[in-house]
């Protein structure tokens, strides 16, 4: 399953619920036009600050949308997150038991919010590898495959990884693959 990528670069101060609703509605409209699986990528690199209300309207509500999306899957990846973005986003997600996949402004993977430790460890490994099947992942994590399945189901249900047959793909890899398709000269390992 290769999702269509919908990119949004944000530049303004993300403060007030009103602003958050406007940003989210635009993204939802963008996604509503995609009649297949879609990956929304929100770049916050140029956002000077985000408050708690806006984090709830943009981040938490988009994560809820991705978890509930039917019939087409929706995934969300937040990029360019600076240290000062983290507390409002973490708070908005944790308050509702949600989790989001993200990348810091230094390109490090970030799993923000609430997630059971085994699922979190699996997510990090999938991100590091890009794509992996359950047996290889179990070996890497020194776990029994059957113990990992529940965690992987959870990650898939929360739209934190993409399942393509027996393979689990990180949202970062899905984004790289989409970029490679847009620029065919780039080889991916």
């Amino acid at each position, binding site marked *: 399953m290769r999702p269509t990528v919908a990119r949004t670069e944000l530049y303004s*101060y993300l*403060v*007030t*619920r*009103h*602003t958050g609703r406007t940003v989210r509605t635009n993204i939802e409209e963008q996604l509503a036009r995609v009649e297949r699986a879609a990956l929304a990528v929100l770049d916050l690199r140029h956002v*000077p*600050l*985000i*408050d*708690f*209300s806006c984090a*709830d*309207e943009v981040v*938490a*509500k988009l994560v809820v949308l991705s978890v509930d999306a039917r019939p087409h899957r929706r995934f969300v990846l937040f990029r360019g997150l600076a*240290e*000062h973005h983290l507390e*409002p986003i973490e*708070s*908005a997600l944790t*308050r*509702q038991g949600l989790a989001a996949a993200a990348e810091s402004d230094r390109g490090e993977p970030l799993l923000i919010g609430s997630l059971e430790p085994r699922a979190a460890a699996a997510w990090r490994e999938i991100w590091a590898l890009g794509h992996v099947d359950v047996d290889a992942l179990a070996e890497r994590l020194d776990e029994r495959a059957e113990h990992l399945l529940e965690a992987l189901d959870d990650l898939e249900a929360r739209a934190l990884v993409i399942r393509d047959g027996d393979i689990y793909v990180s949202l970062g890899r899905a984004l790289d693959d989409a970029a490679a398709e847009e620029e065919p000269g780039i080889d991916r390992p």
Partner: protein
Amino acid sequence: MSRVVQVPGTLDETAFETLIAEVRGLDDGSRLLLDARGVSWVSPYGLLGLLAVGQEARVRTGLAPLIEPPDDDEVRSYVDRMHFWPAAAEVFELDARPPKPHGESDALLEVTTIRSHEDVHRVVEGVREKAQKILHNRLGYPKPAVIHFSVMLSEVCQNILEHADSIGWVCAQRYHWRRRLGRDVVVLAVMDVGVGFEGSLATEHARRTGESWSAAAALEAAFLHGESRFRDPGRGQGLQAIRSQVVRWDGAVRIRSGDARIAHVPAWDDVPALQGGLAPFPGAQVLIVLPARQNDEDGET
């Protein structure tokens, strides 16, 4: 018929309580005149208190109240520099056109009326440079504190839009609190005269608590437990975030609403954490005090 109320010489939190008690009996057709000629010292909370009391009098009597400005040149100049008069012109009937605001003032944030999300954006986006000068350069806060302060400002101003159903005002100033703390502080005041916490949360919470529902119960629900009038589980974070940040900075926060006040009380302060039985007043009145960092405090944000 006019009702003349003398504004206490020291216009602070205590003076606000005095003013509330004085204007309590105002009714239709009696016009309020706030006589501030004898004012010799003003805090941000006191300044906004004049607007809140004036607005309430206007709503209750249907007549724009009057105000006599302070006689003292220094106080007068401070009130001008805080851009009080443009906000006052929307509340009071002023004899003269409000003086043009001076250019750059030394205030962290001049008196600003909040009536829309655009106002909140303007306040938050405009405060950065001064917050950097005052919080970081003067009060010794680490640089990221400027962002945390802006977030706090955004949330406290949004409280007006989301819960008051009315206009409100915000302002902030740096002081030296020699007697109480021996340090510089930033004082942030935010006020409205809207529905208040008790009214805002009533639909969702009053049924559950029945006869024990009160302004104090509403303040506890919102300030301590993050409850909100909305069923949306994402709501109610703003006040919690403000409280956590103030605690981290060893600051104080007090919220007055209806006939009650709730506070986070740091070791250096001595107000009650929860107080009921105050003179009833609509809306919410918030006071936040952020003290200068001391040498033994680390760079924690």
